[in-house]
């Protein structure tokens, strides 16, 4: 591509044509602060934090959207700019609930960070009216506190553009503008799918998950309760970021050690249940293909995707695999199989899950998710909440030894761990389905066509003389595009994997927040997914059907995949919803 030459702060810089000033500066190692800008998601140049001086320009220009020209001279840190940015921050603070000490984002708030950098000493510099809003706690998974909202519209953009949902947006005008839903409905009354991507992109404490850390501390302290924890694959790929490790650090061993020190009676792994999911799902797929069932079959691991399908594609709920998600399969087996084996009353078990996901908080309350007559999972927390818990319990995470999960439900294969990356469930299912169909061992386990962070991936495999067509989508906007193709008869897949969040669970709405500054120039999804693929590669067993503890589960309890008992405990049902009530 053609390069453009310009000067930034007197330095010669060369950047590809079409770059913005912000991108060119980044290439030259110069940081321009941003607040509303999110690459490819929210490029509206509204907040005025990224203003720069361009020689010859009448006004300060927004670096995030202003393209570079040949010979341009840009200044990014003049006294005028520093004063302008400081004023912008002071104006934001004049209508901001400044209870930073008790704010969930204290310490990683982008507004707080910028105020610190720009030396905002008087947070009450501008007096005047302030808006006061009631908290919206109507949704199962999150809270909106508009008193902390700076109207950057990142949440609006990710909901509408990335996810194709658009249940939140700016209402009213001028000083009365607030982000909310139509007719001031609570989020819980809308077709929100609980994906939590809005929380992931919020720069302040305006959006946050419902925190259940207190319930866990109480449960552990109760001698009557038997408290068991499971951790999803992606948690180990993100948790380290909360403790200062570089993005892409696998903290599986330290995480297991931390959970054990917090006092859980058993520290288990959702990966075990991911292997179980593959057994059931691959069996269901082969059954549908052989017996003329509804195709394409679509995965059901992602509760955000499930709710999206119910609202936006209610005529396709029959395409959804009836398999419960790994979280729910785990809970179901914990309170039936494990409880029986250990002689524990399932009512005394507190089933805790740590998930990279906020929709899991919604999923645990769904109907038909109570294999033992009590909820399969009692408390679902996010990766962020786990980090808070570890800190609250006084555990020095970085000094912990690497430990293993407990048995039997901590034993997993490489197939289970890659569930957290887009394409991972597909690859894991293919490893098992292909070997089941051919009866031969796979020469190469890695189905690289379905790997990578692209929104939509397609592949076709010849298995035992049959062409198996598959597709993978992540992010609900991509899911919609793919499903519309299927509905229009333009594609005839057998099996589709859909994950609600772009990139899959590693980029879930419950993962550590990554500031816009970093996110705009980092392949967060790819780096975190790398943890899972390396983890898989290092495993001795990499196929779900070879997991010895899963084999034992079928021998001792379930019989065969797809058995009557498996159906009663591991499968579920869906409802048809509408977009507008």
């Amino acid at each position, binding site marked *: 591509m053609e390069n453009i030459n310009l000067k930034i702060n007197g330095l010669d810089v060369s950047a590809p044509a079409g770059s913005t000033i912000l991108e060119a500066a980044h290439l030259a190692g110069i940081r321009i602060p941003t607040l509303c800008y999110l690459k490819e998601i929210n490029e509206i140049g509204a907040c005025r934090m990224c203003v720069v001086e361009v020689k010859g320009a009448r006004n300060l220009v927004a670096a995030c959207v202003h393209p570079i020209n040949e010979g341009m001279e840009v200044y990014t840190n003049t006294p005028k700019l520093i004063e302008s940015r400081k004023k912008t921050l002071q104006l934001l603070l004049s209508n901001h609930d400044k209870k930073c000490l008790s704010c969930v984002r204290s310490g990683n708030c982008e507004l707080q960070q910028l105020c610190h950098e720009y030396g905002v000493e008087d947070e009450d510099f501008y007096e005047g009216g302030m808006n006061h809003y009631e908290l919206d706690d109507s949704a199962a998974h999150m809270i909106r506190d508009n008193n902390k909202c700076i109207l950057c519209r990142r949440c609006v953009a990710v909901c*509408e553009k990335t996810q194709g949902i658009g249940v*939140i947006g700016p209402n009213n005008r001028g000083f009365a503008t607030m982000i909310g839903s*139509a007719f001031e409905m609570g989020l819980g009354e809308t077709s929100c799918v609980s994906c939590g991507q809005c929380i992931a992109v919020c720069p302040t404490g305006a959006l946050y998950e419902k925190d259940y850390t207190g319930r866990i501390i109480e449960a552990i302290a109760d001698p009557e309760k038997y408290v068991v924890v499971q951790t999803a694959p992606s948690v180990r790929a993100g948790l380290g970021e909360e403790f200062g490790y570089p993005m892409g650090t696998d903290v599986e061993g330290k995480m297991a050690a931390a959970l054990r020190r917090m006092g859980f009676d058993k520290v288990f792994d959702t990966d075990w249940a991911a292997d179980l999911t593959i057994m059931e799902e691959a069996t269901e797929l082969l059954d549908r293909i052989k017996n003329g069932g509804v195709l394409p079959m679509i995965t059901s691991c992602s509760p955000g995707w499930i709710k999206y399908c119910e609202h936006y594609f209610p005529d396709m709920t029959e395409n959804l695999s009836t398999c419960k998600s790994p979280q729910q399969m785990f809970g179901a087996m914990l309170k039936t199989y494990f409880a029986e084996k250990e002689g524990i009353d399932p009512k005394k078990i507190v089933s805790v899950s740590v998930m990279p996901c906020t929709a899991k908080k919604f999923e645990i309350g769904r109907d038909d998710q109570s294999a033992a007559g009590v909820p399969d999972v009692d408390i679902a927390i996010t990766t962020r909440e786990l980090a808070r818990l570890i800190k609250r319990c006084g555990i020095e995470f970085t000094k912990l030894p690497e430990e293993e999960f407990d048995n039997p439900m901590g034993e997993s294969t490489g197939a289970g761990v890659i569930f957290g990356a887009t394409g991972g469930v597909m690859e894991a299912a293919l490893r098992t389905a292909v070997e089941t169909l051919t009866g031969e061992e796979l020469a190469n386990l890695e189905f690289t066509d379905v790997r990578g962070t692209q929104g939509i991936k397609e592949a076709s495999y010849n298995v035992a003389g049959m062409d198996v067509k598959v597709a993978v989508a992540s992010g609900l906007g991509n899911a919609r595009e793919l499903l519309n193709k299927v509905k229009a008869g333009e594609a005839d897949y057998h099996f589709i994997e859909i994950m609600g969040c772009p990139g899959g669970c590693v980029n879930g709405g419950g993962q550590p927040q990554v500031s816009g500054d970093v996110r705009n120039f980092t392949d967060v999804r790819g780096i975190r997914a790398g943890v899972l693929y390396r983890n898989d590669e290092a495993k001795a067993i990499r196929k779900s059907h070879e997991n010895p503890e899963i084999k034992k589960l079928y021998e001792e309890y379930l019989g065969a995949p797809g058995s009557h008992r498996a159906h009663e405990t591991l499968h579920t049902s869906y409802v048809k919803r509408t977009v*507008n009530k």
Partner: protein
Amino acid sequence: MPSNKSTVQFNGTKEQETELLAVIRELKDEKGALMPIMQKAQDIYGYLPYEVQKIISDETGIPLEKIYGVATFYSQFNLSPKGRYRISVCLGTACYVKGSGDIYNKLMEKLGIVGGECTPDGKFSLDACRCVGACGLAPVMLINDEVYGRLTVDDIDDILAKYE
């Protein structure tokens, strides 16, 4: 059904709905169709209550929030119907300095509605307006086409009583 609905019962007819659906069918594939659809919908119903916005959303696939966001941004769109007696209080500069803000507040208190709304019996609706060209009479309000000038807060009860 959202909790924050219009104060007035929706009384849309089948004919109105048929007309709106025809408008949507005609316009929906054009770029930037939302505003013209909303304008026509308001022509048909007189206002844009939940029930009307929902039809637009269901038929076009545009999120309801997007429609509501537009409806609450532009003051030309009404979320409540107009009453049999439409009260407009001038909040233009001359009237405002002469105390029309107090008159407006008194009306809101007296009618139990806020600006832009209509009383549940459909009798009075209240709006603020800008300069009716009678600054010499400030502060001014209109009820339908009747002009009331040189108002004080104490005049309100008697004026409203005329419309009982």
